[in-house]
């Protein structure tokens, strides 16, 4: 009995550590983007995940490797949380031949289909229907892979969101609809875009599982997602998960923009107090990890990210003629 408890605690600590690693990886990767962006070598518009990492990390930790996800142009956190492929990531941001898209995609179009990050898209809401189809294929072919789609509170304005939600519900397709609700579409608040009080309330009218959370706590989000995944599988229907969050930086680019007038810096400060990375670090400490252990782990991740950046900077650009490669699948 005691052993079991100890085992449980170990498992939880292992999970907490895994979540922290992912959170730290994403944050640190974006730290490096901020550090190097001014060098003007990453010529791709950056929509930073900073502040919103808890959602993709919590959900992807619950999904595990055998899963497929779709994300929007705000793709850094979902991509890294799902694939951990920080090397392919930076190579792509630098537009190198060895980038996940061979330099064709950049920040808005990250794809590593082997590791289940299927694509990210620059057209709001347009990955959602595609996720429905992938979830359908995963169900039909019995691959055992779960599917999830990440999108913002702006995406729910679009017809594609409603059509997809309806299709997944009526076709009884296990799929996580994950809404990263930062309250903004570019600079426009929900009040000017949503003809309802709460999207979760509306979605409750559909035949799906609905959960909401505003904790910004990756581990809690993990638990909610894990519960939803189990129910999706058991009940053979989709789940809609609404998570509140806060975008630390401007809509696109690496700078804060609290001087722009459309939002209040105090909201930022309130969120900073519950920053998901700091929160998870406290949890690790409370769970028995030592500061030294955590620092070692952080150091290793930092090393890896730094190396990925260095490598990407040195890597070759696509050769002439590569423009014409890959329009259609080529059997090799």
């Amino acid at each position, binding site marked *: 009995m005691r052993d079991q408890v100890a085992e449980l605690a170990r498992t939880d600590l292992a999970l907490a550590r895994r979540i922290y690693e992912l959170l730290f990886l994403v944050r640190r990767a974006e730290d490096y983007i901020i550090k190097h962006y001014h060098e003007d070598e990453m010529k791709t518009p950056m929509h930073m995940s900073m502040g919103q990492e808890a959602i993709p990390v919590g959900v992807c930790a619950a999904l595990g490797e055998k899963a497929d996800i779709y994300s929007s142009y705000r793709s850094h956190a979902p991509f890294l949380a799902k694939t951990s492929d920080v090397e392919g990531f930076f190579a792509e941001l630098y537009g190198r031949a060895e980038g996940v898209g061979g330099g*064709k995609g950049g920040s808005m179009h990250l794809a590593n289909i082997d590791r289940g990050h299927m694509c990210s898209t620059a057209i709001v809401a347009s990955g959602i229907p*595609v996720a429905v189809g992938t979830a359908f294929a995963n169900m039909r072919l019995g691959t055992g*892979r779960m599917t999830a789609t990440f999108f913002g509170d702006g995406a729910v304005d679009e017809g594609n969101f409603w059509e997809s939600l309806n299709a997944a519900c009526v076709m009884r397709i296990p799929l996580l609809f994950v809404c990263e609700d930062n309250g903004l579409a570019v600079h426009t608040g929900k009040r000017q875009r949503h003809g309802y009080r709460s999207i979760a309330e509306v979605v409750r009218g559909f035949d799906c599982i609905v959960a909401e959370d505003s904790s910004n706590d990756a581990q809690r989000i993990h638990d909610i997602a894990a519960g939803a995944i189990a129910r999706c599988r058991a009940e053979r229907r989709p789940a809609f998960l609404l998570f509140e969050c806060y975008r630390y930086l401007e809509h696109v680019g690496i700078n804060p923009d609290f001087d722009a007038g459309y939002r209040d810096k105090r909201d930022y400060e309130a969120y900073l107090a519950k920053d998901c990375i700091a929160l998870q670090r406290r949890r690790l400490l409370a769970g028995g990890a030592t500061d030294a252990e955590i620092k070692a782990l952080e150091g290793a991740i930092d090393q890896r990210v730094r190396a990925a950046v260095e490598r990407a900077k040195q890597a070759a650009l696509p050769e002439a003629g590569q423009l014409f490669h890959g329009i259609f699948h*080529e059997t090799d």
Partner: protein
Amino acid sequence: MRRISYCDALNEAMAQEMERDPTVFVYGIGVPDHKKIFGTTAGLLERFGPERCLDTPLAEDTMTGFGLGAAVRGLRPIHIHIRVDFLLLAMNQLVNMVSTFTYGTNGRAKVPMVIRAVVGRGWGQGYQHSKSLHSFFAHIPGLKVVLPTTPRDAKGLLTAAIRDDAPVVCIEHRWLYWAEDDVPQEPFAIPIGEGQVLRRGKDVTVVATSWMNVEALRAAQILARHGIELEIVDPRTISPFDESLVLESLAKTGRLVVADNDWVSCGFGAEVVARAAERAHAALKAPVRRIGFQFTPCPTVRALENEFYPNARTIVDTVCDMLGRAPIDTSGEDFYSHERRFKGPF
């Protein structure tokens, strides 16, 4: 060989490929209902079950994205639209997502999906049920576009489309559904990108798409009686468009008429002419001509429809004018009228 209809040829292509490959499935609005998409999905529900022959909610953009998502994870969807006009709701997924997905993975992802869309015409379809739109699809890299004219091509090109790892749009003219022809029973694929000479002739090259080939053949009969021999080239695939047959034909005839089943402005007809102007300039003995819809929305009433659509008579007149010959009196000629077969509604 047996003769079967274009409609049955489409049906046979799907049934045989579904038999051969369990990942192939068909879906779309009304696909399994008792009307069976003008008969082309007949028997599929019964043979392959509701898991592989699915009805869907009305949601064109989303259900196109759905096909993409299914295709990249191992299925081979065939999405069917009873009117090509409905694809206007799906242009986002088709152009922004479907056509670029493979490129975004640097060629790694397969996107084996087929979109079948029927072109309506006549009998008061009106301006929202009668477009062609194939030039839209051919304008976009990353999509393949086929327009089978004959029953044999319908089977062979649809089979090729289903087997292709790229997204293929298949445009089918409603009036061709009744056409009958020799079609091999066994499964076969016609390579996407190869045109076909439907008639040999020395005087004028007519490049025609889809139904306009039928009109061109009729025009050729009439003109032949007046000593004018048309060569009719059916590109069958407009993207990729293998221009070589057209250029070969022009080397012989030196005269080009393009008869497209669409508006001419920025249409596929313009593309054919541009290829000729770029690559067969020296061979051209006379200005080229384009035939297509009048540049108006498609009207409903028959009297105006008759002005809107080109037909064999238009081709005859154009060819005579081009050759500097007196107009042929075609008043005694029998022209095709779908009303003999098709008394609405739809």
